[in-house]
């Protein structure tokens, strides 16, 4: 009698064979229909026999505020300026992937975070309305005719990148730079989407975005009027990363997701779903529209320790310059 009862119990607990669910914490834009979420979900679900659920919101605040109460398996969409703070929460496990396939332009040895795409921040403009875009940050500061829309470094990855970019290029003079920019700023938005939306509907001459943003307009809208201004001082490098959470209820599936991120399938798709450079694909294999975009001569890269070390002081300078 024992065996059938045992079998019945086992059957009860096992037979409702629901497909497993992988819960991935991601920034807001992943969840929208035009964001990278849907394509990544389809791609991964086709090979995992599972359900991929993006839980979207502000990723870093959620990690910091929820801590060990966080219920998710993996995280995607943090960037290199935030990884130290994320790492220090102690919430992450090893990704267990071989990173030799990476093609990012910086040495990458990290057993916690995997870059899934990268790019350079840049001021983006409409070349039919502005035919003499500045060719350096210094020139931008002299162009009082241009009004700008950009993102708050406290709430946005691209805003943080701009803050560190200015810190690197201008050092001591950063506060004067912010005062200068503040005078021509239409608004500083919390996130990228609102800024970019305001720019595309003509509310500003230039928007803080990425060197790769024009590709979206070229490919998805067959519109080549959007360009990124390439600056002589160089552009700030930023990679977006993914990682596995230590208290994942499904760690194996989370690591499969990391493997998927490095797969050729994901890498050849990401350029056109997240409008950025692939992290594990040689440049000659990039889509032509992405490869042919103007590429900065100089990359400015701060590793996470350096970025974090500068952040607080740079933020003081930013606040000082913006509130004076």
């Amino acid at each position, binding site marked *: 009698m024992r065996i059938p009862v045992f079998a019945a119990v086992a059957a009860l607990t096992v037979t409702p064979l629901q497909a497993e669910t992988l819960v991935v914490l991601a920034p807001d834009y992943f969840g929208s229909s035009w964001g990278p979420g849907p394509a990544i979900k389809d791609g991964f679900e086709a090979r995992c026999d599972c359900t991929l659920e993006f839980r979207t919101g502000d990723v870093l605040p959620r990690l910091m505020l*929820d801590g060990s109460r966080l219920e998710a398996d993996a995280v995607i969409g943090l960037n290199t300026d935030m990884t130290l703070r994320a790492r220090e929460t102690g919430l992450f496990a090893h990704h267990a992937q071989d990173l030799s396939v990476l093609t990012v332009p910086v040495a990458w040895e990290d057993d916690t975070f995997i870059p899934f795409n990268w790019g350079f921040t840049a001021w983006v403009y409409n070349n039919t309305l502005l035919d003499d875009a500045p060719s350096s940050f210094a020139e931008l500061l002299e162009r009082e005719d241009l009004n700008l829309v950009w993102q708050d470094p406290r709430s946005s990855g691209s805003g943080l990148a701009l803050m560190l970019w200015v810190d690197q290029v201008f050092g001591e003079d950063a506060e004067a730079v912010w005062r200068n920019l503040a005078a021509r700023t239409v608004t500083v938005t919390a996130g990228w989407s609102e800024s970019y939306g305001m720019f595309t509907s003509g509310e500003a001459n230039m928007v803080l975005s990425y060197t790769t943003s024009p590709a979206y307009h070229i490919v998805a809208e067959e519109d080549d009027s959007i360009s990124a201004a390439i600056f002589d001082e160089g552009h700030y490098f930023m990679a977006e990363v993914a990682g596995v959470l230590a208290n994942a209820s499904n760690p194996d599936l989370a690591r499969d997701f990391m493997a998927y991120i490095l797969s050729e399938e994901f890498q050849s798709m990401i350029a056109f779903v997240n409008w950025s450079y692939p992290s594990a694909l040689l440049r000659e294999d990039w889509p032509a529209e992405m490869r042919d975009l103007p590429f900065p001569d100089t990359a400015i890269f701060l590793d996470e320790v350096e970025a974090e070390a500068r952040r607080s002081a740079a933020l003081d300078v*930013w606040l000082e310059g913006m509130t004076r």
Partner: protein
Amino acid sequence: MSDPARQARALALLFGGLVAVWLVMLNFGALGAVAFRAEGLTALRNSDWAAVRFTLLQATLSAGLSVALAIPIARALARRQFFGRGLLITLMGAPFILPTLVAVLGLLAVFGRSGLVNQVFDMLGLSRFNIFGLHGVVLAHVFYNLPLATRILLQGWAGIPSERFRLAAVLGFSPRDTFRQLEAPMLRDLAPGAFLVIFLICLTSFSVALTMGGGPRATTVELAIFQAFRFDFDMGRAAMLALVQFGLCAVAGVIAWRVALPSSLGGGLDRPVQRFDLGGRGLRLRDAALIMAGAAFLLVPLAMVVLRGAPHVAALPPEVWQATGRSLIVALGATAATIAMTLALAHAVLALGGKRGAGLEWLGLAALAASPLVIGTGLFLLIRPLANPRDFALLVTMLVNAGMAMPFALRLILPDLRAELTTQGRLATALGLHGWARLRIVTLPRLRRPLGFAAGLTAALSMGDLGVIMLFAEREGATLPMQLYRLMNAYRQDDAAGAALVLLGASLALFVVFERWGRGRAGT
């Protein structure tokens, strides 16, 4: 005194006492939790002091402009009779229950970079102006509070006995003399109170600064608390800012208390006394222009919300409807809590009487000076060691909303309850009516009108509130105002326009349903 009477009194004191304890916990307990985490004034950055200065500056400007503009408009309304006057005065109550984000979207549609005014500027070859920053924040606050100020002052005009105007006419006063002799003294009494109420409201401004500030230059303390909490994860600084905010509110609150708040929100303003100082045609034209400008300032943004939103309501994503459902639950819960707490507190105030009753009443009104974000931060810090604060997002929002609506509800209900007690109290006692039976048979029917109005006000305020929820919830569990903010952030303008209209409709519907109920059998 018979036993049931004593029992009823004890019950009133018990429930009122419980409410008082709860209010103390909410207003001061949360503050205690905050103070425990605060790191001292050195934790504050220069920008935080800039936020303090900005908060005071914008509140002063907003209150000053609202009152200054309200004086000529109220004066024009007071001495003119025209078709739709009553309706216009009723509509002037609307901004009070209008969700902030709806107002912001309406104002952006009119004054934004691609709004109506800038389009006209463009056609005239003038350069467009930028709405974001101090002037945007002040504009939104004036939009909100100009009608409130106008209504408060109109009451003042209505309170000037018609005999005086008659006398003034006999004495041959010009409009200017009338102003100096009759109207200016009234304004000296009322305007400071109106200024302080509006100053107090603007002191805790969060969502206006969040959406119209346009950067760190225009950050209120309330917004700085949110940013320290959310962006810097700096609980110590958030707590310190919360203490500063509490200090500001407490000082302003005490001053307002001393100056005596005008008993706002009263009705019966639509019957003007007969006026003889109507002046000539020039004055009539000027009054007409003033009234029309005031009405346009109020109505055009609202019309824009309706016009822009209507085509997009049908295609709204399901999250908006789910958020609407959540917000309705929060609003109804907050309403029930407010009414129950207000009734209990009001009974206790009257049962105690004297100084102690006044003290209890003061506690109920103190929430007027409380900052929702301070309370929210405190509750978050209290809950966090015990459970996941996210699980309490809606409950906390509901309770904080109830606390915020309480001063208004108390002010509406207490006078009628007091009147009920003096007029019906002895008879009811003689008949041996006490406790629940008395509440049901005598009190509630008499209080139906203020109860309905208070319930409508609470429901609408709670429906449109964006504040505490931003500390507690993520994408999941968003209320409708939060969902609307997210759509604005994602620059999904069509969806945002549709959601704004839904929010406007829901707030107005809640108000109208309760208020109608209140009027249903009033005075029986």
